[in-house]
């Protein structure tokens, strides 16, 4: 018998029922809930007269709509200026009260982006099945969990039954061997993978990220990589459990303690693919080959190394791709054949569930320390991923570094990642953003997003255009 992949094991452990028609009933250990994709699910429960199957399996936190300006935030839900956002956040509060679910209020220090909060509190753990009505739930796979986004009907399904009806995915191993160059981060790895396999490359697969680069990577870096699995088309990405995982989890609020910890660690030690496991597909990259990445277009696969040159539709044969590139260049207001280094961001956004953890903020702070944001940059926002991250950053004095450089230090939330609150781009504005999607209008109507790492975003903020953070740091800029 051949060995099992990590995904096979997680699947097997949670299989309630395999059905003849190929579908399966899978048990869900943890559901994270936020305000945007849950109201209709709670309504559904109410209409059918159902109750949550297991209330302790759920944890709710508002993040998408919350204001990040301190003044507006201080007044709590009632002070949210946009009445529609206010109603949505209030509805989450009311629903959690009605159904007796645990929820962090918007000014609770534990509040933050749901995918930052989960691992941080130990609410998501190795070996779990984790779902949330949000596609970046793949983030939690970094812990060695089976984690993926679901739609609102499924949110309701999980609330009512603690299970999901699923089809098993195929296994894809993305192996990155070697080591990363200085200045190259997890974000660059994620973008390089997407650049290689495309935004549909992972469709139908569960991805396992492996290889020496992942082994050497911190948990926060692994979360960044798994976070963007969905941009590669895969609902879930995961990394095997090792000591880095255990060190990260130990001591967190909801993590097991004492004897239970020992018992859990023993179970978690098995959470890796067996030596002889067979993957349906394997993609390999060399760590040394990965340069800092910048997206130039309107899909995450439209990405180039920082020294790259934008494609020219005239040289593209495939008709669909030719149209896509033409449209993207036009939307982005960029010339075919121009350089990444010529792109000048009007705004800079450091935040989102991809890159708003403490290491991300440290890496951005290191770049801007003692410097100032270029005059051409209208706004540089730094939005920590959670209240805990914010507190930690302030203890380390990172907030001062940002503020001294002319950046804005905000309250935690999704913010300009999708611009559901007041933080957004104006039409035609370019943004160096550490988020995960550069779709048309994502960060504001007509806005133009360039996805980069925190260090690259910070360097662009100071230089006023994209620069290679590797030379830049060496040159002592």
């Amino acid at each position, binding site marked *: 018998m051949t060995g099992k992949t990590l995904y096979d094991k997680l699947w097997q452990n*949670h299989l*309630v*029922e395999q059905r003849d*028609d190929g*579908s399966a*009933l899978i*048990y869900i250990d*943890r559901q994270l809930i936020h305000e*945007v*994709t849950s*109201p*209709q699910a709670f*309504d559904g429960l109410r209409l*059918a007269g159902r109750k949550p*199957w297991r209330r*302790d399996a*759920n*944890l709710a936190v508002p993040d998408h709509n919350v204001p990040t300006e301190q003044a507006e935030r201080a007044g709590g839900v009632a002070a949210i200026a*946009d009445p*529609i*956002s206010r*109603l*949505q956040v209030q509805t989450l509060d009311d629903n959690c009260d009605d159904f007796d679910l*645990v929820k962090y209020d918007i000014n609770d220090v534990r509040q933050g982006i749901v995918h930052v909060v989960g691992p941080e509190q130990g609410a998501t*753990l190795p*070996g*779990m099945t984790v779902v949330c009505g*949000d*596609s970046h*739930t793949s983030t939690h796979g970094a812990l060695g969990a089976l984690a993926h*986004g679901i*739609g*609102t*009907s499924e949110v*309701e*399904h999980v609330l009512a*039954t603690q299970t999901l*009806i699923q089809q098993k995915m195929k296994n894809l191993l993305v192996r990155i061997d070697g080591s990363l160059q200085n200045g190259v981060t997890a974000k660059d790895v994620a973008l390089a993978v997407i650049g290689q396999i495309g*935004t*549909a490359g992972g*469709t139908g697969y569960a991805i396992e990220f492996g290889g020496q680069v992942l082994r050497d990577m911190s948990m926060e870096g692994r979360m960044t990589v798994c976070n963007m699995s969905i941009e590669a*088309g895969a*609902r879930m990405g995961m990394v095997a459990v090792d000591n880095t995982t255990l060190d990260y989890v130990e001591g967190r609020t*909801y993590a097991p303690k004492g004897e*239970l910890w020992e*018992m*859990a660690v023993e*179970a978690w030690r098995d959470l890796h693919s067996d030596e002889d496991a067979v993957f349906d597909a394997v993609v390999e990259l060399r760590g040394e080959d990965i340069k800092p990445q910048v997206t130039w277009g309107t*899909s995450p696969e439209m990405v180039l190394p920082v020294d790259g040159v934008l494609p020219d539709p005239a040289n593209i044969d495939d008709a*669909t*791709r030719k*149209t*896509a590139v033409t*449209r993207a260049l036009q939307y982005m207001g960029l010339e075919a054949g121009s350089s990444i280094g010529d792109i000048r961001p009007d705004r800079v956004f450091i935040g989102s569930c991809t890159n708003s953890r403490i290491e991300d903020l440290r890496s951005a702070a290191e770049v801007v320390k003692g410097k100032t944001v270029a005059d051409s940059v209208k706004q540089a926002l730094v939005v920590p991923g959670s209240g805990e991250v914010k507190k930690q950053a302030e203890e380390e004095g990172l907030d001062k570094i940002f503020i001294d450089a002319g950046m804005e230090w905000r309250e935690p939330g999704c913010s300009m990642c*999708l611009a*559901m609150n007041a933080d957004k781009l104006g039409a035609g504005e370019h943004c160096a953003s550490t988020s995960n*999607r550069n*779709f048309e209008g994502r960060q504001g*109507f*007509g806005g133009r997003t360039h996805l980069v790492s925190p260090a690259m975003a910070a360097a662009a903020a100071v230089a006023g255009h994209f620069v290679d953070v590797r030379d830049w740091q060496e040159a002592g800029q």
Partner: protein
Amino acid sequence: MRAFTVVSGLVAPMDRANVDTDLIIPKQFLKSIKRSGFGPNLFDEIRYLDEGQPGQDCADRPINEEFPLNFPRYKGASILLARENFGCGSSREHAPWALEDYGFRCVIASSFADIFYNNCFKNGVLPIALEESVVARLFDEMYASEGYELTVDLQRQRVITPSGEELSFEVDEFRRHCLLEGLDDIGLTLQSAEAIRSYEQGWREQSPWLFDVIK
């Protein structure tokens, strides 16, 4: 959920690859706490010339005359023809809600993003993946003849073109069954409540640290 058996209708184009869920329904409309009413904002950013706001009456907005869904010839379409990787991006179910509310019962594309594909079935919208070359041919036929209609027969898993050509498509058995019958998944799953309980008990013994922690 509305059952889907046979649907015949006018076909409209969404002729680009990688249509993402932000394009299908922009985020400002996700602030709604309802499940209906998203139709007027389907493809909002390219359908209108201004920036749409939730709750606004779309009848007064300047429309983008170049966007095919605004062409008179595609008015009343119930089948959307699209390219590869349709529905990529977020898990927002507002995307199929908007398609359904607009009047689309079926989306035909060369491939779909996983979460979107799954969400469609929960809302009576049938996503059909056909070979890229076949989709290209359907696009050609549709552009060539105004009033181009297709018939989709879920029972027989066939798309039937005006010339009578039958194109078969794949759909997994469980989803097909639920859609044909218009079944509520939750009700079905609860028929397995015993199995869930017994699994849960075993899992609790094996992994007690996963239970009763968040209180």
